[in-house]
Each structure stands twice: as structure tokens, then as C-alpha cells.
């Protein structure tokens, strides 16, 4: 049921990558509970602009859970308290009247803050460029349909492919590890015949890039899996481990 709530927002404000940031409090009055979290931030920004203050900078694009841009850490959870949802899919009905809502950027050496709540997730693009593609000729759509793939494999590959590269896994991880993302991107191809050809090279190149960019060592705490908006399973991490270790033993 729709109603209005009032609450306090504590938002991380930081003018630039090198500058010191701090929390700033904003009182929000009478926000309808069917407002989305990002719409609520839009309301805040409109108020700030009207007052002549700088609006809060945050990343967003599709606002329907597919682009992975809305990287906000809300009340101790990447993408906020909802499970299996991105920040743009979070609604104010998840909060109560009088709440204090703390909004922070992803905190990880691999994702430096650009401004306020916006971080540079370019490291993920670099990892993809290192090998997250198929470079052999796989033919056209009819060729794809002519290759038999078991339902089980197809489902696993599809699940892995649902990763939107949002970076919540790194944000949630006490080790700042990007293994859930890398393993999903390796698995979505390694499980299919078209991707298998280059599987070993891909696993080695993407992992080497991840290490080079300063992400941490995975210790299987499973925080990533619990916070991932697409519920990517850590069994992908075991698959990446296996791909990588067997590739290294073959060398």
C-alpha cells in the first residue's frame, strides 16, 4: 500500500578522486513508498539544484536492472537490502519512516571513486578485453542451431551470462576479489562448444589481468554470491579454478 515516509539520507560526498570525502546528511520529507531509490535521489538532486548546491553524482543508465551501472552501497549492502535486485530495482517501500539511510560508493582499490557515489569500473572492461570473447569463426545462426548442446549446459551458460558486470561482487568482498565476475565471464563461454576452443587461453589471460589490476585473492566467503543482483553461483569460481589449474598443468 502506498504511503509517504520521511527519513534521513547520509550520502558520501567527494569532489574528486584525490580529494577527501565525507558524509553529508539530508532530510527527505514525504517521499511516496512507490518511488524507486534512484527517483528518490533525483528528487534530492532537484532540491539541491533549486537551492544552488551541487547535485549528488551517481551512475545509472537503464534503470531496469540490465546495464549494471547503478553501483550504490546502501545500508551495508551493495545494491541495497533487496536480494536479486539492482539499486534501480530497489523501492522506498523497503524502508521505514524515520530510517537513517547510508549511501556509499563501492569501496575497493580496483574501483577508485571518481566523484561522490560514482566509481571507475573500467577495470572490468580491461578484464573483458583481455579475453572475454570468442575470436574464432563460429558461423551464422543456422550453424549455431546445428550444434547440439545439452539443456543442462545451456542453462548453466545462460545463468553465467546473466552477469551484468555491476561490480557488486567486488564491493561485497572482504578481499576485494573479482572472482565471481571473472568466473561468470569465463564460464558463459567455456561451457559452450564455441567457447571451449579458446577456454584455456581465456581463463589464463582474464585471471592474469584481474591479478594485475590489483583485485584480491578469493577465500570463498560467499559474500559475492549473496549480494549479486543476478544470483551468480560461486560454483562458477570452482569452474574457473579448474580451468586455470588444468591449463597451467598442461603448460
Amino acid at each position, binding site marked *: 500500500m502506498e504511503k509517504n515516509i520521511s527519513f534521513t539520507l547520509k550520502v558520501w560526498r567527494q569532489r574528486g578522486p584525490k580529494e577527501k570525502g565525507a558524509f553529508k546528511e539530508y532530510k527527505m520529507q514525504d517521499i511516496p513508498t512507490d518511488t524507486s531509490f534512484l527517483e528518490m535521489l533525483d528528487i534530492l538532486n532537484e532540491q539541491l539544484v533549486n537551492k544552488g548546491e551541487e547535485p549528488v553524482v551517481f551512475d545509472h543508465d537503464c534503470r531496469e536492472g540490465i546495464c549494471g551501472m547503478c553501483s550504490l*552501497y546502501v545500508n551495508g*549492502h551493495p545494491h541495497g537490502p533487496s536480494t536479486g535486485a539492482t539499486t534501480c530495482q530497489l523501492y522506498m517501500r523497503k524502508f521505514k519512516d524515520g530510517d537513517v539511510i547510508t549511501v556509499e560508493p563501492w569501496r575497493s582499490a580496483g574501483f577508485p571513486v571518481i566523484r561522490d557515489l560514482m566509481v571507475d569500473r573500467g577495470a572490468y572492461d580491461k578484464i573483458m578485453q583481455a579475453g572475454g570473447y570468442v575470436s574464432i569463426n563460429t558461423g551464422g545462426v543456422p550453424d549455431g542451431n546445428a550444434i547440439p548442446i545439452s539443456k543442462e549446459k545451456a542453462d548453466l551458460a545462460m545463468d553465467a551470462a546473466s552477469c551484468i558486470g555491476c561490480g557488486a561482487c567486488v564491493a561485497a568482498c*572482504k578481499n*576485494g576479489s573479482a572472482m565471481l565476475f571473472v568466473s561468470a565471464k569465463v564460464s558463459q563461454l567455456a561451457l559452450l562448444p564455441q567457447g571451449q576452443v579458446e577456454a584455456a587461453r581465456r581463463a589464463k589471460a582474464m*585471471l592474469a589481468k584481474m591479478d594485475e589490476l590489483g583485485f*584480491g585473492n578469493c*577465500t*570463498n566467503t560467499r559474500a559475492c554470491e549473496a549480494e549479486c543482483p543476478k544470483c551468480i553461483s560461486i560454483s562458477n569460481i570452482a*569452474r574457473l579454478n579448474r580451468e586455470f589449474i588444468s591449463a597451467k598443468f598442461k603448460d
Partner: protein
Amino acid sequence: MWLINSSIGRKLVMSVSGLGLILFLTFHMAMNAVALFSGEGYNMVCEFLGANWYALVATVGLAALVVIHIVYAFILQIQNRRARGSERYAVTAKPKGVEWASQNMLVLGIIVILGLALHLVHFWSKMQLTEIVGGHEALVYQGLAIAPTNGAALIAINFSNPLTVAIYVIWLAAIWFHLSHGFWSALHTIGWNGKNWIKRLEVISNVYTTIIVIGFIAVPLLFLAQSLIDSNFVLEYVKNTL
């Protein structure tokens, strides 16, 4: 070297050294269990191992595993802290499905080393070390010389002290927590994958770990109980082993 330079390589070293230590704990527990039934039987095991060449080789291998595991634990911890960046979150919440042990492996490991140090003083220094340096007695108890291979007597003497037993229980609890995460995690690290297998591995590891830890804890508890019930128990027991 990929075992040092890549994150999965480092994890593999952690995993294999940890699994090696679990294998050792399994044998150690099985031997201790003999002491629950027969001091004589236990001393036969002690004599068989003692400071014979195969026991020495195994000890050196074991020490190497422990050192590798600890050195890598600290390397990983330092790298992971750095990867986390300099700013910390103001608000953190533990997501469901995250085990407490998995986030505190280093602290648990440090408790394990402290317990281990005490344990080496209690037993190893009195037994194998004494034999290596050519000593003939582990210690003298109420005028009775105890031989370095008389493990049963050392058990009875050490575990008549409630404080010692309490420390051993805490130590073994830390090992239980360490392995409740470490065991399945190690199998996951070497690439044992599958959505159903994660659950199965967790169950198998928890049951296995619980059996090992109960097997270990039984010895100090049994001997403490006996010494509390009968104040002559330790002396009688020690005399019987001579």
C-alpha cells in the same frame, strides 16, 4: 612461477597445504583414539614412531607444510587488505549465507598456532625432541622417571590439570571453526565444481571435521574426568605404564 604470481596459484598452495594438514590430523586423531582404550597400545604407537627415520622425515614434511600454510596466509591477508583500498565502509552488514569462520580464518589460524606451540612444549619437546638430543627421560613425576616414548604417562599427567584441558578445548574449537570453512573451501579451490556439489562438500567436510575434533577432545576430557574422580588415578596410571 604461477604458484606465487597468480591468485589461483596462491590459493592452490593454501588449499593443498591445508588438505595435507587435515590428512595429518586424521592420522594423529586415530592414534590418539588408541589411548582412550589402552595406554599400553598407545605406547606401542609411540615407540613405533619415536625418533625413527620415517617419523623424522614425516615431521620435517609436516613442519614445511605448516610454514608454507602460515607464510601464504599472511601474504594473502596483506594482498587482500590492499585490494580493499584505503577507505572502509561506514555501515556493513553480514549477508546471509556467509559463515563467520570464513571471514576470520587468520584469527582462527593464529589461535591454532598458539595452541600448537603449547602442545609442542607439552608433548613433542618431551618425546621426539628428547630422543633426538639423546635424552633418556621426558620428565620425572613424583620420583618416577618417565621415558620419552611413554606417551600414555604424559597424557595422564598433563590432562590432570583442568586449565590445560580448558586450553586444549578452546584450541580444538578453533580448529573446528577453521576447518568448518577451510575443508570445503580447499576442495572448491582445487576446482571441484557443481551447484549440488557445494552443498555435499559442505556436509561432508562438517561431518569429517566434527569427527576429528570430537576424537581429539575425548582424550583430555576422559583423563581429566578420571583424575577428578579418583585422586590416585594419575600416579597409579603412570606406575602401570613403567
